[in-house]
């Protein structure tokens, strides 16, 4: 068994939600699970990623302590108290380059349910903290994580895979930003207090905006929402006055007739003056604003179908970016694997350098009595530098050699540089 990165992945493409929700970890339980792995399997390096869409475990299998993903699956079932009949069977076992590539794709948002989403980067950073807490963080996985995060950042900085909103409510906010720029001084009115209104308001959480007004037929529900999201309440009978002082209107009432007719909107437009645009996001069914309202200058009226179009365009835009994001992931995977494979020849390099220096010292010792102490020190420095310089070239070449993926090549290099191969006559004498 050689040095290898192995992994186990339970993710949204292979594992049902009922299983995924049972194998989700938080910091204390994740740390405890990593400690369990260290104790029971003996893995020195292990990292656990747990998000709403995936639970994944990565470890380093060494010649001294070979591990595999299947053993992690058994431990996972045990840790999460699965009955033998309900043990998770839908998971992916990852090994070698495949494990590395998978992690880099996860970091790049290419394996996410919402293509290109960036929350995963924070979640990967968090998982590094868990492994530090559990004492399972090591040189190899640390480097793997660092490179995966780098790949993730590059895909988002160098491609547009994370651009554009992918839900109707966020598309409405994106549209508002496209019209008003910053939302800092945008006056928002939410008409209706149902589920859609709540969703729309939740998408505004974290965004800074000018002022929020909630209007609803039932005043109490409007007040509840206003308290929850920090706004004021106005009655529906004041709709014209409110529209005069608004920039973004999100409407989702259950009214059977339009609340705002074309003529009402024309009046609003003429009384508003100036050129400040008015964006109406009409999420009601049937619509709260007459369709013709959208034909008025500087008034944008968008409904669910229009927002879906934004979302579809954003999805297409992200899909178009996939090949470029994959090229970045490929390059980063190659870089990491070059470094990782070079680890296999490190013992060989160390050993043959030791041999060369041992020969140097032995030869130098023979001259010790023929020179004074100062001259000896000069010779010692000179020969050490000479040997180091002579070995630098082959050492560097070895670390970069494309044959590092071939076990036989590494064994041969090791044998040639560090073992004493007997002369043919000596071999024949032994065999004879």
């Amino acid at each position, binding site marked *: 068994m050689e040095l290898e990165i192995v992994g186990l992945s339970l993710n949204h493409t292979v594992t049902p939600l009922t299983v995924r929700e049972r194998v989700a970890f938080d910091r204390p339980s994740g740390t405890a699970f990593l400690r369990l792995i260290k104790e029971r399997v003996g893995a020195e390096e292990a990292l656990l990623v747990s998000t709403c869409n995936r639970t994944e475990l990565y470890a380093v299998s060494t010649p001294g302590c070979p591990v595999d993903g299947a053993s992690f699956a058994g431990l996972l079932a045990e840790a999460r108290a699965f009955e033998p009949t309900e043990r998770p069977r839908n998971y992916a076992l990852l090994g070698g380059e495949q494990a590395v590539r998978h992690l880099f794709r996860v970091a790049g948002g290419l394996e996410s349910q919402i293509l290109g989403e960036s929350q995963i980067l924070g979640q990967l950073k968090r998982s590094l903290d868990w492994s530090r807490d559990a004492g399972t963080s090591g040189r190899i996985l640390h480097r793997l994580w660092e490179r995966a995060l780098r790949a993730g950042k590059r895909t988002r900085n*160098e491609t547009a895979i994370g651009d554009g909103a992918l839900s109707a409510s966020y598309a409405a906010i994106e549209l508002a930003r*496209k019209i008003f720029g910053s939302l800092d001084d945008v006056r928002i009115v939410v008409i209706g207090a149902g589920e859609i209104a709540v969703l729309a308001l939740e998408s505004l959480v974290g965004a800074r905006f000018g002022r929020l007004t909630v209007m609803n037929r039932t005043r109490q529900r409007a007040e509840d929402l206003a308290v929850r999201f920090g706004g004021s309440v106005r009655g529906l009978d004041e709709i014209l006055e409110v529209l005069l002082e608004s920039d973004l209107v999100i409407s989702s009432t259950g009214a059977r007739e339009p609340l705002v007719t074309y003529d009402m909107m024309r009046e609003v437009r003429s009384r508003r003056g100036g050129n400040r645009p008015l964006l109406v996001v009409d999420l009601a069914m049937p619509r709260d604003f007459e369709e013709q309202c959208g034909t008025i200058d500087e008034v944008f009226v968008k409904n669910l179908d229009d927002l879906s179009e934004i979302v579809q365009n954003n999805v297409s835009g992200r899909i178009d970016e996939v090949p470029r994001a994959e090229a970045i992931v490929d390059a980063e995977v190659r870089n990491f694997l070059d470094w990782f494979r070079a680890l296999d020849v490190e013992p060989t390099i160390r050993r043959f350098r030791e041999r060369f220096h041992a020969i140097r010292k032995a030869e130098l010792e023979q001259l010790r009595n023929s020179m004074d102490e100062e001259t000896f020190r000069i010779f010692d420095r000179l020969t050490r530098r000479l040997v180091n310089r002579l070995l630098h070239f082959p050492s560097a070449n070895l670390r970069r050699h494309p044959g590092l993926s071939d076990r036989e090549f590494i064994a041969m290099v090791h044998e040639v540089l560090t073992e004493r191969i007997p002369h043919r006559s000596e071999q024949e004498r032994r065999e004879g």
Partner: protein
Amino acid sequence: MDTAFNASLILLTAVQTALLFAYARIFTRGVAEGVGRLARPLLVGSLGVHLLSILLRSALIGACPLGTWSEVVSVVAFSIYVTYFVVEVRIGDRSTGVFATTPAYLLSLVSAVAMLGATDPATTRVDLAQALHVVAAVIGFSAVALCGVYGFLYLFLYTAIKRDQFGLFYRRMPSLETLSDLNHSSTWVAFVALTGSLVLGFWAQGAGETGVLTLVEPAVLVTLVMWALYGACLLAWRFLGLGGKRLAYTTLLGFLMLVGVFFWGLFRHGFHD
């Protein structure tokens, strides 16, 4: 000197072509990667080469290079690039670069071709008053060109949103508000510079340093109309809150007037009668 000047024009055209390509790449890709990353160095490089070519021209003719139409056009192009450079640094957005620099690129190309073809450079001497007048006009016209670009982009994005065309253009453009602000800032520059140019022009005429100018001279008349138009825009923005679409239409009209003046000058081989 002649060879050095011609070489600088060829180099300038090559750098500006690469710059345009880099900005186009940024617009289509949405991020500055690949050749797009070179946009800023190319912009700085093109400004350097452009300045060098203006200095070489100046040394070649032994006077301020504002005596012929092609020289003025070259300085206008340079001025647009400088104005855009300042705007890009200020707002940190390169997505409009391909649109903002295209007029400057075309102007620069036209003037380079004209100057490369001219074996015997014109040696119309320009005195200080004239030079100040021309420089102010050049800055004013450059700002008018930028206003036109931003006005056009505003109307294009406005229409795209109205018609639910949420494609590449929608995704890559800055907000309507930003485009309107950029238009407004450029309008200020245009108004101030045109005011300076008109005042200096009439002052120079009063001092008897130029030929006789009349208000009915087409180029002067159009410049006066543009000046009044831009002044009215600024007043409307300040007191009536009129910006956005109306400002875009007005500045686009100003830009069309500028194009008219440009072709007038090209046809007449000079700005004034």
